[in-house]
């Protein structure tokens, strides 16, 4: 095999094979461009099979078509923890290409956050203090930058070696995948022949991959392809014997084949790639091997000046030692940043590092740590250098220095918002603290502060249990004379315990915190502790106790100018007030707390919390339109804050629930489809099933409604939350009654009643009791003489339960009152004495509440009562028609069917009006709706339209929501667009 390598090449110039894979990648890029969407694709395969090569080939072809290619590599976990390594690399490269000013311009308002990753930018913009909003801002900066680039040309983001990604990077790219504007393809290369460093990687691939369904698997080359590869490297076709030999061992793995070719001259060929690589090293001179061993300790990328220091070989000698490594294609050279060597493939570095003797490794790691501590700029990467130093001291077995370095690295990682990595460094520090004697601990702050920081980082990394353990250790280590710290750490403990679903223990911790933090002189510590305590009391539904604490916290926060604490406390106060009957005041507080949270922008959760709480308060007060508006706005806000997965499903359900009450069923359907697409889990999934079931019931799709509600009942079997249980059981009972399974409906009502413990707020319980009363009344009516009496008693029981529940609640919302009125009507119906006037009054109540579905149901029942009691047929016909058109308008198929059925039996014609719409009106708008639409298109507000047409603005609102539904528009502005497009806006409004 002598003399086979006759060129200076170890790698083929052109990519062999892979045309099918490249075509798939190009098709995905085309899709991303055509749909203005973000596509995600995983390029998978074993080590050395050519994932990077394929991605590079694709990138250079795409770049030739004008695409912008950004590349970042993950760094081996076993080598060191480099938080956000691929993103830092990609951004650093972008700064190099576009210049700092352009990158800052693209990143927009959040640009200063980029200094966390690219210290070089700090020359151009100030470094901001980290807050709990920093992660969100940093994300905004990066996504704004990519969106800015993709506005001009398609963008391809390549993240190499995803199997070595850290958790922070994974979270970041998950967000990118769902938030980027479009025209963007995210490409991840992943090794599949060994498990990833972090199990989270596997989950990420499984989840994103399932969603996108995009995996491009790079298979081994066929014999023909491998022949072409060799032919390209050698410049001549390979001899059959050579091809046989290489193909037999490399089995189509291109990197293996390249290495075999380079090894060439040695007779015996090794069987595994690791043996092969080590055999390759044996070929090299001892000095070269020594230099390579030192390099392998530094990493895959080895800055020349650092290697000089570590290898302990003088300058001319080290060049001589390294030259053969470059000539034999072990190392590649880079000229950027003062010169560096890069192992040609990660496998080479792994093989060399794996062959080090323990003492040798420790000695080399110590040298690297010393060199980097002395001159951090040797690393060429200032962000990660602290982590590198810590890891090298650790590997060198120097406990005291490893401890100090780990704490520094943890702080640096936290500043870069890499909380999982920061926690990993803190955990290392904590275990060293346990192991080292006191005289070996050299820290710049008391031990308890380190533990406290560790706890806070665990909290931010969404590990509340661990945060609780760490803060307990901090509390044990603090001198109680540090009263404020001591007390405030109990507040933190309370918060972590609440997050860990340990409600009782959390309250105990807060009590202790209030006890320990001195009331005088007034401090922000004191204000924060009181506000925190009021929050958990509020969450536990203890509004009366929470309220005075919230007020006191606000007062103290104002005294010391702690505005974020003030906002936090006002949020608690707002909820307390709303549920204690002071709705207007509560809403004002919630709005103010949101404003403060947005102004301060310290903790994004506070903004989301203000929105969610404001929605609940409005919704439970029956103010559906406002509550829908808040929830719809909230969807956009939480997404812009990077909370799509944590809060996006919940906000969509909030909005859909309000919209379905308003009869805006098309909008609700769209939101629930979106919520389903986010693949919710846990309580989020239960809520999506629940709201979907409610919507499907109202649309008359009873079978599907039933199966989604049953799914919610099954998955939420251990729920204790009345806000979910109440509507779940209420709707399930209604669905079962509607399909005629009355016994099942009544049994389900009993189950729901038991679950609610009879102590829930009327807003959650009365709808269930009213649904049960309706089911019992239906059973009584069908039951005839046999058992009829007993059934009427059943109805009475449910009416009495409703009444008791209302009497128990300090404030009762109008929805609960309307439901209660329904239950009473059911009782008179069941007793054989239908009261049409009462049903009409109920219909009016629902109309005022802007719930067209319930209004239609009640009008239908009013008509039925009139017909049954021989009342005024004209009124009955009118009510029936109104019920029918209303139900038809909101797509309530079941109610439409019932109305038609009643009309047929009573010989009432539903369509006796001359058609109001002409043929050129495909939307079947009423004349009134046409008038309103024309004025909407003129840009008038509801109030102004009401003034023009002599109707109330509430009525206008109703017409507008009908128009939205009929025209399939999502927003008012869309209405205008459609009106002009279809010539509906030119009609002159009718007089009156």
């Amino acid at each position: 095999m002598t003399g086979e390598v006759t060129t200076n090449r170890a790698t083929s110039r052109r990519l062999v094979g892979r045309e099918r894979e490249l075509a798939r990648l190009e098709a995905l890029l085309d899709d991303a461009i055509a749909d203005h969407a973000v596509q995600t694709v995983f390029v998978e395969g074993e080590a050395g099979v050519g994932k990077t090569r394929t991605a590079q080939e694709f990138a250079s072809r795409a770049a030739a078509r004008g695409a912008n290619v950004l590349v970042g590599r993950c760094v081996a976990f076993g080598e060191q923890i480099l938080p956000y390594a691929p993103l830092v690399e990609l951004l650093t490269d972008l700064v190099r290409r576009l210049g700092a000013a352009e990158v800052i311009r693209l990143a927009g308002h959040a640009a200063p956050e980029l200094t966390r990753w690219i210290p070089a930018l700090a020359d151009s913009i100030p470094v901001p203090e980290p807050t709990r909003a920093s992660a969100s801002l940093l994300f905004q900066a990066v996504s704004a930058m990519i969106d800015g680039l993709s506005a001009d040309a398609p963008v391809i983001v390549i993240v190499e070696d995803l199997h070595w990604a850290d958790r922070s990077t994974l979270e970041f790219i998950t967000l990118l995948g769902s938030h980027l504007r479009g025209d963007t393809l995210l490409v991840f290369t992943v090794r599949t022949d060994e498990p990833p460093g972090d199990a989270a990687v596997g989950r990420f691939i499984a989840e994103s991959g399932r969603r996108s369904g995009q995996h491009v698997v790079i298979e081994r080359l066929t014999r023909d392809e491998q022949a072409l590869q060799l032919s390209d490297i050698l410049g001549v076709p390979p001899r059959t014997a050579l091809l046989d030999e290489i193909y037999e061992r490399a089995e189509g793995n291109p990197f293996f084949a390249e290495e075999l070719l380079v090894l060439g001259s040695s007779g015996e060929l090794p069987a595994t790639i690791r043996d092969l690589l080590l055999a390759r090293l044996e070929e090299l001179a001892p000095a070269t091997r020594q230099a390579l061993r030192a390099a392998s300790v530094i990493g895959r990328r080895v800055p020349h000046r650092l290697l000089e220091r570590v290898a302990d070989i003088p300058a001319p000698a080290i060049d001589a030692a390294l030259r053969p490594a470059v000539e034999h294609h072990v190392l590649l050279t880079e000229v950027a940043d003062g010169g560096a060597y890069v192992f040609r493939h990660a496998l080479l570095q792994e093989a060399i590092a794996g062959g080090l003797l323990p003492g040798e490794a420790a000695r080399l790691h110590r040298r690297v740590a010393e060199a980097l501590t002395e001159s951090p700029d040797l690393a060429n990467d200032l962000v990660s250098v602290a982590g590198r130093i810590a890891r090298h001291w650790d590997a060198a077995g120097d406990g005291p220095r490893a401890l100090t370095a780990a704490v520094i690295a943890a702080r640096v990682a936290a500043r870069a918002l890499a909380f999982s990595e920061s926690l990993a460094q803190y955990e290392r520090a904590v275990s060293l603290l346990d192991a080292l004697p006191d005289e070996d601990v050299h820290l710049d702050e008391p031990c308890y502060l380190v533990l406290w920081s560790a706890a806070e980082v665990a909290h931010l990394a969404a590990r509340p249990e661990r945060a609780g353990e760490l803060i307990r250790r901090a509390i044990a280590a603090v001198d109680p004379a540090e009263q404020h710290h001591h007390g405030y750490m109990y507040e933190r403990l309370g918060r972590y315990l609440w997050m860990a679903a340990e409600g009782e223990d959390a309250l105990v911790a807060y009590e202790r915190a209030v006890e320990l933090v001195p009331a005088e002189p007034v401090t922000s510590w004191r204000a924060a502790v009181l506000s925190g305590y009021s929050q958990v009391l509020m969450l536990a539904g203890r509004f009366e106790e929470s309220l005075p604490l919230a007020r006191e916290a606000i007062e103290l926060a104002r005294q010391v100018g702690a505005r974020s604490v003030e906002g936090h406390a006002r949020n608690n106060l707002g909820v307390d007030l709303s549920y204690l009957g002071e709705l207007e005041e509560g809403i004002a507080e919630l709005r103010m707390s949101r404003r403060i949270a947005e102004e301060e922008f310290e903790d994004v959760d506070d903004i989301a919390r203000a929105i969610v709480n404001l929605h609940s308060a409005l919704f439970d007060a029956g103010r559906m339109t406002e509550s829908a508006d808040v929830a719809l706005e909230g969807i956009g806000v939480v997404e812009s804050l990077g909370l799509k997965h944590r809060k996006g499903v919940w906000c969509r359900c909030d909005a859909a629930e309000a919209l379905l009450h308003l009869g805006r069923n098309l909008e609700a359907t769209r939101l629930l489809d979106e919520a389903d697409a986010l693949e919710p889990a846990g309580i989020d999934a239960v809520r999506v099933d629940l709201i979907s079931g409610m919507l499907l019931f109202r649309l008359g799709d009873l079978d599907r409604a039933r199966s989604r509600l049953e799914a919610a009942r099954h998955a939420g079997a251990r729920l204790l939350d009345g806000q979910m249980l109440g509507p779940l059981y209420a709707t399930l009972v209604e669905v079962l009654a509607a399909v005629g399974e009355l016994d099942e409906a009544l049994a389900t009502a009993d189950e729901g009643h038991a679950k609610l413990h009879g102590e829930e707020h009327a807003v959650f319980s009365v709808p269930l009791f009213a649904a049960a009363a309706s089911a019992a009344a239906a059973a009584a009516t069908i039951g005839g003489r046999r058992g009829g009496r007993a059934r009427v008693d059943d109805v009475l029981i449910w009416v009495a339960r409703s009444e008791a529940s209302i009497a128990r609640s300090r404030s009762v919302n109008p929805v609960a009152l309307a439901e209660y009125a329904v239950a009473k009507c059911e009782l008179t119906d069941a007793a054989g004495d239908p009261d049409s006037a009462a049903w009409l009054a109920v219909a009016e109540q629902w109309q005022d509440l802007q719930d067209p579905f319930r209004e239609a149901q009640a009008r239908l029942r009013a008509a039925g009562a009139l017909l049954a009691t021989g009342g005024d047929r004209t009124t009955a016909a009118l009510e029936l028609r109104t019920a029918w058109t209303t139900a038809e308008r909101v797509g309530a198929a079941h109610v439409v069917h019932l109305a038609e059925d009643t009309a047929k039996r009573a010989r009432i014609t539903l369509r006796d009006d001359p058609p109001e719409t002409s043929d050129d009106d495909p939307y079947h708008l009423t004349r009134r709706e046409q008038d309103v639409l024309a004025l909407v298109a003129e840009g008038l507000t509801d109030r102004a339209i009401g003034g023009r047409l002599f109707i109330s603005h509430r009525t206008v609102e109703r017409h507008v929501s009908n128009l939205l539904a009929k025209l399939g528009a999502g927003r008012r502005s869309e209405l205008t667009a459609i009106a002009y497009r279809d010539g509906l806006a030119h009609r002159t409004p009718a007089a009156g």
Partner: protein
Amino acid sequence: MALFMDVHDRVEGLTAEAVAGAHAKDLEVQDRYGVDYRQYWFDEGSGKVFCLVDAPDAEAAAQVHREAHGLVADQLVPVQEG
């Protein structure tokens, strides 16, 4: 000197570029053996290659191939120019 047509039944990894590379190597080596590789034809799909060579004898022609790149022809057929 005699004309031969050599036939490679199936050269694996055959590309236009690689066969040109191989021919170039023949040209580097051939003078030492008094051989003249004049022309070649190939088909990438089947891997077939035909070389027209002017050589003192069949063995000299084969030796040039062997030394240049190691791809020795499967058949070497004496031919005459028509």
